[in-house]
């Protein structure tokens, strides 16, 4: 398969995630759509890394794109943790779990 197919799939997934973030109102589902966009970026990174998987003069294979994807996964895990903590705090305070209702940032 040519790399372009993977990039096309990645673009479709990213667009679905972006549309979900715009449309949905439940913050849980918005977090899920953020995951979709991050995963689309990961797929593109790994596909581009596959393009350059030739050993250099020292005999080492470059893994830069895969390391980038791994760090993106770590950042996504952190974002999920903090986001779910905020949602649980919202629920505990009896606030509506709806991003259109939450217009104020103070307490």
């Amino acid at each position, binding site marked *: 398969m040519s790399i372009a197919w993977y990039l096309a799939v990645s*673009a479709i997934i990213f667009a679905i995630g972006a549309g979900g973030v715009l449309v949905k109102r439940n913050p849980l589902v918005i977090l899920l759509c953020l995951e979709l966009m991050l995963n689309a970026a*990961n797929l593109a990174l790994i596909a581009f*890394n596959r*393009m350059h998987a030739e050993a250099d003069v020292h005999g*080492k294979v*470059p893994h830069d794109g895969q390391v980038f994807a791994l760090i993106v996964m770590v950042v996504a895990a952190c974002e999920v943790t903090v986001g779910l903590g905020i949602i649980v705090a919202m629920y505990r305070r009896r606030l509506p779990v709806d991003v259109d209702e939450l217009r104020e940032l103070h307490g």
Partner: protein
Amino acid sequence: MAEVLFFIVASGAIGGAYGVIKDWNPFYNVLALVVHLLSLAALFLLLRAEFLAAAQVVVYAGAVMVLYVFVVAYVGGAEPLRRPFAPGLRGLSALFAAAILAELWVALLGTGLKAVDGQGSPYNPDYGTPAGLGEALLTKFLLPFELASLLLLVAAVGAVVLARRRRGMGIEDDDVARVSVIEALRPEGTGTMREGVSGIPDVTGTPAGSHPKGTVRPEVAAGVGEGRRHGEGDEWEGGW
């Protein structure tokens, strides 16, 4: 063979992504994301990124999704929306997403890179293995690696602080046992007034007198309590 597998897995990934934004119970949205992540791991495998595929399954589908399922079960998903959508806003959002897709396709596929149309580099057995990735992480990318660990620590502490109980059912200050230094250092049986009231255990280990608060019935203190409990015709004394 790889082409057939690619189309199966890619349709699974796109279908899972569509299931995430479908209007139904958030629990099903999470399950659709699990399907999407597993398909994406298979795509990674097709791209020869074995370690990342394994990490995707273990970390995402294993750990992060469990967190999501717990929070969905806690918050409880589908509540009726209090306010309806503004008219035309959803159509506008879908149009915007389609614009992003067209732009990405133009940018990715209309690029002049010749390698985009190729199969990628010839396969190297060192590519995508944990050894190669780990060496890259610990030599060239040591600083991002350490920063990622710091970020994970900060996120864990932040989540605990965010989700802790703020009022009610917490440990109040009065509930914390206070131990005074004098009581901790003083040997037993030095004849304080509290010991005189409560009774000091004697050599055989049986309490010499009454309960520390003085609430024990006399027959229990005299050692007949056990026999009385097994006696016939006694009513059970409640109060549990």
